[in-house]
């Protein structure tokens, strides 16, 4: 039966209602997707080969970019914090300032953003191409779960590689700060590392750890979901990849604020 045309005064309500339903539906699909992935993650048969492949894809292949960005972030922090502290005669606190900035905040966030740019986008594009070339449908009609083969291993790999990438980012960044503060600006090595041991405790490390774990889940969840639900053709893959990177990056920053508030 054809729909009756709406009175002009009701059309804005119709548009808002339609938009609200669409948003709730897509959130529901997003949540259901994660629940299905979790179910595939905890029930046999497990796919260790797919998991190792994802560790390589998300983690190992991101190492170079993590080393580079970690080193330069630490160097910039070393320089800028030193120039600020020296005004107050407090340059002895350069080590803890660099370490705390990296461990609590910049390490997890920047490492997650870098891995999103390198591996998250590739993950979405790979799944998107598999979707439009019917490779995901092929798995389904073979009675094999694409969730088990493609999504669950990626989320598990994200859970493990993001904290590792963050730890590497932190260590390399601290040495970047050391290079600038100690080797270029003349701060003593003992002061840089000694004060760090005094001010940085396990609680700070755990803040960064929990952040990186949650970022790993967020990024792999968003990127696999976007790849799985790609539109048509090359444009659909390009659009899904952009959306995945933008949404992951925004969620990393928003979630970082909430995690920072909770884990003080």
């Amino acid at each position, binding site marked *: 039966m054809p729909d009756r045309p709406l009175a002009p005064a009701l059309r804005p309500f119709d548009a808002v209602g339609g938009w609200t339903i669409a948003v709730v539906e897509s959130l529901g699909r997003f949540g259901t997707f994660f629940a299905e992935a979790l179910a595939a993650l905890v029930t046999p048969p497990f796919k260790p080969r797919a998991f190792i492949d994802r560790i390589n894809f998300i983690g190992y292949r991101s190492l170079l970019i993590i080393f580079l960005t970690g080193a330069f972030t630490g160097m910039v922090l070393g320089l800028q914090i030193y120039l600020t502290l020296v005004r107050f005669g407090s340059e002895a606190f350069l080590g803890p300032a660099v370490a705390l900035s990296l461990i609590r905040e910049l390490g997890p966030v920047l490492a997650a953003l870098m891995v999103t740019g390198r591996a998250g986008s590739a993950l979405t594009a790979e799944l998107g191409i598999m979707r439009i070339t019917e490779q995901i449908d092929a798995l*389904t009609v073979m009675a094999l779960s694409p969730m088990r083969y493609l999504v669950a291993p990626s989320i598990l790999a994200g859970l493990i590689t993001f904290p590792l990438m963050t730890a590497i980012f932190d260590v390399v960044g601290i040495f970047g700060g050391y290079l600038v503060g100690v080797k270029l600006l003349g701060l003593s090595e003992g002061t840089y590392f000694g004060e760090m041991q005094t001010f940085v405790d396990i609680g700070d490390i755990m803040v960064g750890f929990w952040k990186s774990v949650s970022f790993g889940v967020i990024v792999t969840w968003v990127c696999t979901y976007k790849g799985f639900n790609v539109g048509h053709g090359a444009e659909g893959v390009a659009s899904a990849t952009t959306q995945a990177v933008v949404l992951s990056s925004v969620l990393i920053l928003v979630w970082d604020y909430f995690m920072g508030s909770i884990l003080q």
Partner: protein
Amino acid sequence: MIKVEGLTKSFGRQAVLRELTIEVATGTITIIIGRSGGGKSVFLKHLIGLMRPDAGRITVDGVEITRLRGRALDEVRRTYGVVFQGGALFDSMSCWDNVAFPLREKVRTPRDELVKRVEAALGQVGLEGVGAKYPAEISGGMRKRVAIARALVTEPEIIFFDEPTTGLDPVLVNTIHHLILDLHRRFRFTAVVVSHEIPEIFEIAETVAMLHEGRIVEIGPPAAIQASTNPVVQRFIRGEADNSEER
């Protein structure tokens, strides 16, 4: 037997399948013909359980698959082989691994038997010696044949072919059609082939069904379809434009 009754599917306000009804006898080759955009691929996706209808039902050997989900649906799918339009080969795997994949993952075949069956499947489609190549390194026709080998390797009871010759030259079209016919004679699977390769496809068909605007408008042996007085069928066979659809 595959029995489809009153299958209806719409996307938004666009009705794609309208109370489609058809029966496919076990062990036969049934060809679904029709114009592009007429609902052939959507119909096939319902048959293989990738889409759910708005109304109607599909029964495969007495099991109503339109009501099944999860493992129950997977049990029915284990009897299927599907050859997708573009082949849908996993491009991260070699051709050999593509063919071996369903045996490794679906049937968990011992190594010795797996090697034997993969080599045999590749041999049946005339692709001995190309197993080490990746899908991107072989031609379109070879990719289709690898896809057929992959569908065939688990010895399914029903194989669905979604436009298996699209994009191939006339010689390869003929080769693929005769390959399907030859394999069907040897293995006696039920074949449902979606195609618009007219009239070549009539050579291998036992039953031809014309799908038009979401309905089966004509069904019968190839000779009966070619002799049909239905103007829609005749226009399609002759490749004539439908003036009523011109704007």
